[in-house]
């Protein structure tokens, strides 16, 4: 797209994109660290994840402020307006995803006094698709890639299936030995958080759909 006549306007919109990119990158790191902490029982790492969440919350505030400023000072219309609205929505979703990472890190601390369960090793496999969805949704926003956004949206079904399989494994472990109920419940929460990363990523994909097409996304007709 051609640049704006007013260069500062372009700079502001670029900054909006950069902030979301930065927030997204940080959140991906948070997710990775959270999973590492829970697998290795690394409480130090878990604490680090919990502390870092504040920085991500601050980034969301920063994005909100910049978006409001652009609306007030530039009165964006058409694609620009949709960009600002998408940025507001997406920063909110990213913030939620970062919260999930923090929640997973909290499970690490909760699991501290509980017996170790080999089932924890299943979390990275569970995370693989949601994380990929999240990364791709962010790329779709940065590059206005409609097809990639739709692809992300379709990936979510697989996440749901894997989550249900993992859930069955957890239930079986609990039935097999009541001592497993404690750690399995923590793992269940962690798994649910991972599954939610996929859901939030589809929300980002839907925001990209609206950004690119100007239409609201309808579940009934994903192309």
């Amino acid at each position, binding site marked *: *797209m*051609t*640049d*704006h*006549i*007013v260069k500062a*306007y372009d700079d502001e919109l670029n900054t909006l994109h950069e902030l979301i990119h930065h927030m997204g990158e940080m959140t991906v790191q948070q997710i990775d660290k959270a999973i590492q902490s829970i697998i290795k029982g690394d409480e130090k790492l878990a604490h680090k994840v919990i502390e870092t969440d504040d920085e991500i919350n601050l980034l969301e505030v920063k994005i909100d402020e910049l978006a409001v400023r652009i609306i007030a000072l530039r*009165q*964006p*219309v*058409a*694609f*620009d*307006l*949709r960009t600002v609205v998408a940025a507001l929505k997406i920063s909110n979703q990213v913030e939620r995803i970062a919260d999930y990472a923090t929640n997973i890190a909290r499970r690490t601390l909760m699991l501290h006094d509980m017996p170790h369960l080999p089932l924890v090793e299943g979390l990275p496999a569970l995370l693989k698709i949601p994380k990929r969805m999240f990364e791709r949704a962010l790329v779709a926003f940065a590059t206005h890639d409609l097809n990639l956004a739709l692809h992300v949206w379709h990936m979510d079904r697989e996440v749901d299936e894997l989550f249900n399989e993992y859930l069955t494994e957890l239930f079986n472990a609990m039935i097999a030995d009541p001592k497993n109920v404690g750690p399995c419940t923590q793992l269940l929460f962690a798994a649910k958080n991972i599954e939610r990363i996929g859901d939030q990523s589809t929300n980002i994909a839907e925001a990209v759909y609206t950004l690119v097409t*100007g*239409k609201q996304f309808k579940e009934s007709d994903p192309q």
Partner: protein
Amino acid sequence: MDIKIDVKHLNLFYAEKQALHDVSISLQSHQTTALIGPSGCGKSSFLRCLNRMNDIIPSARCEGQVILDGEDIYARSVDVVEVRTRVGMVFQKPNPFPRSIFENVAYGPRIHGLFKSKADLNDIVEGSLTRAALFNEVKDRLHQPATRLSGGQQQRLCIARAIAVNPEVILMDEPCSALDPIATAKVEELIDDLREKFTIVIVTHNLQQAARVSQKTAFFHSGYLVEEGETGALFTTPQDERTQGYITGRYG
């Protein structure tokens, strides 16, 4: 919705230079249509075609049809004075006559013989000033010179003058460009009220104003009508790249 003015394949030439190319658009009754586009795009020229104001330019030549309530205003049998009575105009700069407030509004009804008695004329003047949202501000000084009014009041007086002859369509060419934001807001509020009775076409360089006052927006570029549609849709999801570029400030 009824069509008030149906423009079909309109071409406009100033001597050899073609100012409008095959413009077709239907203007709905009781709606405000905003015409937007960069300077020299043909939007004002188009506006002036709607009440044959281009007739006064010797080199101007028009092809195509401008159909007002089913009748082509460029047909031979049509009386141009009657056209301009039915399709009134308000200009960029408020241009009251150097007369009293009362006489400015009474002028049109006088030359068209639109009243039977003095009381009739008083009613027309008061009604027009009221509809132009000016009466309360000037009721105690109707016989003072109109030039003493503020710019915003003068523009509302010009609107009162335009509506005094009971037109059906009001054309506005940048009616707020010389006004401050408060006066602009008053005129915009007035435009919204007026469309209950009239059909309004407004040329504006102020895109936010077009978005605020109109139901339909038409984007002109280099003498072509590029895109027209419901205002909300045009400002959120324009279909043409050129419209997108212009309204987002990427034009150049």
